[in-house]
């Protein structure tokens, strides 16, 4: 027979694994997944107690948490994408600018290897401006 204790044990294991993952990994997406795992451990507790007391409150809580987690996932992934576009990095230690003013940044002694730089997509010059190579050879055409 599966008792309340079994559910709670699974929940606790999920929470603990997520916690350890959150603290030890530095990739933002992995950290986010670990946080989700902790969340699911908590949801499991709700469901277990709901079943134990014989009412639906736990189930309702579970549904709500899953909904909120979905929204949260969308938001978090969008933020990560923006961050990646700015700094070409998903290392959480690279994003420490929101710290006390005047405090020196914490130096990462063991940084993640940088991914190889991608070549920029080819772009056209803005209309009305001469290409740089042409301007260099014909200085009289540049505007003051």
């Amino acid at each position, binding site marked *: 027979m599966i008792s309340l204790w079994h559910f709670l044990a699974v929940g606790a294991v999920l929470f603990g694994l997520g916690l350890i993952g959150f603290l030890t990994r530095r990739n933002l997406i992995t950290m986010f997944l670990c946080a989700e795992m902790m969340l699911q451990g908590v949801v499991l507790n709700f469901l277990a107690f709901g079943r134990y007391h014989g009412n639906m409150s736990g189930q309702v809580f579970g549904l709500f948490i899953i909904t909120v987690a979905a929204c949260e996932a969308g938001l978090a992934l969008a933020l990560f994408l923006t961050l990646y576009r700015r700094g070409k990095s998903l290392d959480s230690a690279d994003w420490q600018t929101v*710290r006390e003013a005047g405090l020196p940044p914490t130096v990462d002694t063991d940084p993640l290897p940088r991914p190889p730089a991608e070549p920029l997509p080819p772009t056209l010059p803005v209309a009305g401006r001469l290409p740089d190579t042409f301007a260099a050879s014909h200085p009289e055409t540049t505007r003051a």
Partner: protein
Amino acid sequence: MFWALVALLLPLAGGLLSALCGLARVPKLAALPAVLSFAAAAVLSLMVLSDVYHGGGELRFAANLGTWFSAGHLTANVTFTLDPLSLTMLCTVTFIATWIAVFSASYMHGDAGFARYFAVMGLFVFFMCLLVLADNFFLLVAGWEGVGLCSYLLVGYYYAKPSAASAARKALLVTRLGDVGMILGIFLLWRMGGYATDLSVLFERIGNNPPPAAEMTTACLLLFCGAVGKSAQLPLYVWLPDAMEGPTPVSALIHAATMVTAGVYLLARCAPLFVLSPDAQLAVAIVGGLTAFVAAFIALAQYDLKRVLAYSTVSQLGFMFMALGCGGVVSPKMTVMAAVFHLFTHAFFKALLFLGSGSVMHAMGGVIDMRKFGGLRKVMPVTHATFLIGALALAGFPLLSGFWSKDHILHVLSDAGETRMKYHNTYYAVFLLAALTALMTAFYTFRAYFLTFWGPVKIPHEAHGHAHESPKMMTIPLIVLAVFALGVGAVVDPITHGFGHFLDRTPSIARADQLYFKTTNMVHTEHEFNWTIAAISAVLAGVGILAAAALYGRGGPEKVPAGLGGLHSLSANRLYVDEVYEATLVKPVEGLAVAGRQFDSFLDAFARLLSYLPRFGAAVLRPLQNGLVQFYALGMILGLGVFLTVILVRSAK
């Protein structure tokens, strides 16, 4: 009564209109509403006077315009009273203010604060009329303090001048000192009189069941404190000579009609209270006598023409208080009549003298030091003639107004000295002091007159070579006031006895008289003209004038009779009173202020120290916010761990 209230409000309206003229950038018109409103108020009050003058019996109109404020037992009503006493004051104030306003319109012409001057002047006259008409102690105090405020504004009219600013502060602070006593006295009377604040009710109640003598004396002396401050009597007179810093017409207004007469009026009004306390009366007489003497002594050697006049005002106010102080031993009808009569005549000739000195100052380009000019009688004939009349009146020269009123006061004092009652020796001493002061008055007045108008013509270079007679706007008020100073005394009382009989119809004075006869069992006697006193006072005036003529008849420079050099320097240095006050009062207070400031900065330092404690804690904790997400997470987990441990340990117990 209605017209009297209109006369009360007119100066206020005039002042407001003047202020509006200033705001509307047409300051040149500002004099017009003030002059017109004062004149209208004067005409109205004179009409009321002529309406009620004839007839007999008590005369009193009252108006109750509701409650001003009320708290517990304390209720202040807006009540007005119009009786001969207040009507006399009202007519004097508005009449004199009108002529002073006319004079100022020319004297202050082109001044930057022209509109402000007339606005404050309107307010000044309004508050004085309020004070005079009020039948409630708190309304009276409102007028009283309003007059103080306006004197502050006008004395400090040239506020950019440091001496004027400090003189204004001095005027306000010194009179405030007396006002503290006055407010305390009012509250004492309020308690003794069954929680009433209306003057007429208080007089009735306190007269019917007189409280213990000690309590009555305390209350009267406290009221007298206020009068001492406002009317510049002995310990607190120092503000009045300094108030010369204001424009000269302001001095005329303060000295003649408005400010300083308030104290005399208060004591005249409260005669039914003072008559119950012979001790307080004696104190009033002694203070008045000493003030009259000291101020006259100081006036003997002053070089500033306005200062001589200022000290003479202090001295003349002392005369009025001497008369009021006899109320316990002589019939209050006579004492109040003597004081108010002197107030009345003094208002005319003192306004005249001040306006005359203003005219001199105007011509001399702002110089008022008598050593720098002289022999002006040819240069300014009208000013000379009018000033001479004013000086004769002030000196008490026979047949001029000042003679009759001073004679009344001396008469009252000699009567007080001759009664066989308690303190009559003291009153006799006060009488001798008053006679001596009368002599000195004649001397210093004519010293100033001769130094200014006789001797070789001497004109300071500040006049820029065009010293001339003042314009018509200034000489006409002088002439009008001179006519009054010449004749008003004789016409109003000694011939017709009209003034005395009219004033006797004041219910509060009649009440005081009644109480006096009840307590002293005196027999009612009719006021007789005393030829001996009149002769004495005429001789005194003549001797003073002749002495001044002998010493200064040919103009300056100052000649000090041999052997009197010490006295002269004592007088010229104003008895060192200002210096003594500076050393005994101002310096300790300054020391206290410095100590207070030190203590304050110590408290500040302590408070700053306290504020550094949280700042220090924050400095320790601030590096924890390092921006690393996982560091924060670790912190949360550790916190959670501690929290759980605590719960587990506690539940295990």
